[in-house]
């Protein structure tokens, strides 16, 4: 390996239409899944939830060849990563999941409700899940956040506060019956999801 400083990062390219057999085979192809849409582990503590929804393009058509990845803290707001110096992992919860959309553009994750994570000033952020969106036609993935409509902390969340009020709802999953939340992703258009420049 050279010790020269590289010119810059390797540019992103689209995940394309054919990632499924390699990244999300999910029993439809013989390759094994490194990750699935089920983040639950037997020993995990916290409220078990399902987050589900559909992905739409600028015409309102469902996106059937999309890959979604989530990253989140555990129920106590700690990340399963040694870079989180506060972390005292008490379970095998990894906090990472991956799901390909189906023929209806739908996806679902089974996970736990994350706890609150501090912002760089130490102020609490409302519980949220990071979501990365990849698809054919997307040369670079998009980042957004999934908040929850039954969290009082949303009102004081420093990230939501930066989002124009009329677009904030695009970041908030709505509770259905039982433990399910709905969160649709609109890549473009009147209902376009807020994406973050991070």
């Amino acid at each position, binding site marked *: 390996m050279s010790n020269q400083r590289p010119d810059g990062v390797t540019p992103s*390219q689209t995940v394309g239409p*054919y990632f499924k057999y390699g990244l999300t085979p999910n029993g439809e192809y013989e390759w094994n899944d490194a990750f699935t849409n089920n983040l639950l582990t037997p020993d995990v503590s916290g409220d078990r939830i399902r987050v589900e929804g559909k992905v739409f393009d600028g015409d309102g058509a469902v996106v059937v060849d999309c890959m979604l990845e989530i*990253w989140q803290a555990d129920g106590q707001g700690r990340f399963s990563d040694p870079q*989180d110096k506060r972390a005292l992992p008490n379970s095998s919860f990894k906090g990472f999941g991956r799901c390909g959309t189906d023929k209806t553009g739908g996806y679902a994750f089974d996970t736990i409700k994350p706890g609150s994570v501090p912002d760089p000033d130490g102020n609490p952020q409302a519980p949220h899940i990071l979501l990365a969106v990849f698809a054919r036609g997307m040369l670079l993935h998009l980042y957004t956040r999934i908040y929850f409509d039954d969290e009082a902390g949303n009102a004081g969340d420093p990230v939501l506060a930066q989002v124009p009020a009329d677009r904030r709802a695009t970041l908030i999953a709505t509770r259905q019956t039982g433990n399910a939340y709905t969160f649709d992703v609109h890549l473009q258009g009147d209902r376009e999801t807020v994406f973050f420049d991070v």
Partner: protein
Amino acid sequence: MTLLYPLQSLAAHPARLSPDYRSTVKRSPSRPLIPIRHTLSELTGPVYGHETVREHDNDLTIQAKGEPLGERIIVHGHVLDEDGRGVPNTLVELWQANACGRYVHVVDQHPAPLDPNFTGAGRTQSDASGYYKFITIKPGAYPWGNHHNAWRPAHIHFSVFGHSFVSRLVTQMYFPGDPLFPFDPIFNSVTDEKARMRMVSSFDLENTKPEWALCYRFDIVLRGQSATPMETK
């Protein structure tokens, strides 16, 4: 080690709306992205156990009963951060077409043969120095419907994680000197030539194995810089 992820690093990437690649037109946001400060959520990322990668997952030529057809190749390199330090123990996933330019994916209807001995999926973990290595088959070019007589240059899809969720990268590795480069809107969506060439592997004679396989080197540079800039020599 504390790493920073300045937004300037993102300038190397393609514009999300790149109309020559038609599918971007309805799949790119029309409103500006909202900048936010990086919090722990952005600055951490998944860590994998050894169960994620099995022993031969990086050799795509021994996954089936027989050997796949095509030109056997070695693809290796380092996963690096922007300061040139190796990114250790990070997951590298790969998927590709077979030697004829056909994917196993059911949606791929290109009239080229499937190879019963080639799936085209692999994964590995970089070692302590960031080094990774795959053995595979050189993929073929394939047609796509973007425009009249559109063909993708031969490429291998890569997915890499890195130190944090914001260092996540999905890209494509190309082969040096491909005559299809000037005509491919996905390759040319990266408008800066130097940046574009970072997606092109280099032929590696030194690590080519006599009587066995050509070797290509592909270093993958992820976001992440030291908090204090490194001295450049």
